């Protein structure tokens, strides 16, 4: 056990870089996913079939084919067509597209859940479409979508562990190295899992904070107790959440 600890201490300098790679993938993937989700989510709501159709196809395509297949396809197959990306870029693009497609359903559902009267009131005030969405509808939808986006963010973090298999040195890679050095699976993987848990927990706090802020902006906020902020909300699965927001 003391040898294990010594090896752990020796490998700590690598941990910083490994956590950074995992965070880069998570934050980069989440940013891309958010853009994809907004574009596809709004696209899936338009009246024009020429926009709605392709949006739906893209959403169902990325939701339906597994993340594992997507990431390896981008890494092994795409270069053969002449698009070579760095491994980190592959991971971010794969995570962004996959979870972006899930996020699109969240965005679409949340916007559908904002009462129609809000749209009508904004129209009555003669607000333009962009103004309506930015000032009236989106802030309300944002508060609704945050809990589900928080779950997707954790799933994205978990999915990023795949990057180890496309040569990236992330937290899972660090765990694997530690296992090889200590030959103590329980110790090394235990620590690796705890690191993932801590990252996930911090991300959850951040999302809880964003949710509270979004609710306060709507005048629905209560000052949250410490317990609400630090507590983990039971995860609503992304797939379950989709229909709650209204029928496609």
């Amino acid at each position, binding site marked *: 056990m003391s040898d294990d600890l010594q090896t752990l201490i020796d490998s700590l300098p690598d941990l910083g870089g490994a956590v950074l790679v995992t965070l880069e993938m998570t934050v980069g993937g989440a940013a891309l996913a958010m853009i994809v989700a907004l574009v596809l989510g709004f696209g899936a709501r338009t009246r024009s079939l020429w926009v709605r159709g392709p949006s739906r196809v893209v959403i*169902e395509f990325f939701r*339906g084919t*597994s993340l594992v297949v997507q990431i390896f396809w981008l890494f092994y197959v795409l270069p053969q067509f002449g698009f070579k990306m760095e491994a980190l870029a592959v991971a971010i693009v794969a995570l962004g597209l996959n979870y972006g497609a899930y996020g699109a359903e969240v965005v679409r559902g949340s916007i559908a859940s904002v009462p129609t009267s809000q749209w009508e009131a904004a129209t009555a005030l003669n607000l333009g479409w962009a103004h309506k969405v930015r000032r009236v509808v989106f802030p309300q939808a944002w508060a609704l979508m945050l809990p589900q986006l928080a779950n997707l963010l954790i799933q994205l973090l978990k999915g990023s562990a*795949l990057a180890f298999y496309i040569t990236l040195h992330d937290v899972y890679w660090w765990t694997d190295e530690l296992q090889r050095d200590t030959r103590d699976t329980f110790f090394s*993987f235990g620590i690796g899992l705890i690191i993932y*848990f801590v990252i996930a927990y911090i991300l959850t706090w951040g999302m809880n904070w964003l949710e509270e802020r979004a609710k306060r902006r709507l005048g629905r906020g209560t000052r949250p107790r410490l317990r609400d902020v630090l507590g983990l909300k039971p995860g609503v*699965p992304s*797939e*379950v959440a989709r229909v709650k927001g209204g029928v496609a």
Partner: protein
Amino acid sequence: MNDESIWDWDTAWAVLPDLLQGLVVTVEATVIGMIIASILGLLIALAMRTPTRWVRGPLRFVVDFVRMTPLLVQLVFAWLLLVDIPPLAIGFGVLGVHYATYMSEVYRAGIEAVPPGQWEAATALNLPRGRTWRAIILPQAIKNTLPGLGNYAVSMFKETPFLFAITVVEMYSAAQRFGANTFSYIEPLTMVGLLFLLVSYPTSLLVRRMEIRLA
């Protein structure tokens, strides 16, 4: 490689039998994993209702821990730790436990959605506790959980390729192996993706239908 024949239909047909064999393993893992997840998830949901904090607190922690750490790392962890157990069995078990933590929330919501009047009626009829659960609460609660179960089955199906990391030859590893032997990855990997879509999309449509019907 010349540009004219990036996609080779002969290779695509050659890999198909391997992929279909892999698909059988994939479906098997999903079904068995889901059975484990449904049973264990229910047990967790019931255990979470015990009044003592000393049971709920630690259990809550374990459930959150399993839910918030990568399935992939859990799989490899269990595989390295339990050397005597065949990888496929480990795959079933870890998938089952991972999804049980999600299913427990579905059950919790399902149980809470049973109207309080049902509990009161059972008390008024002087039914014993066990009978109340078995005959009154659970049948209604489980009906509420069916869409959740369906959604997680679809989602688990798409996560079975993680089993490649522990040497189980499911659909993705079958494609990977074929690619490694023939140096052609385009057809196998593309076909795997399409096969996933082919199975998961109709299933999710079916689940959505069930959801609307039961709602």
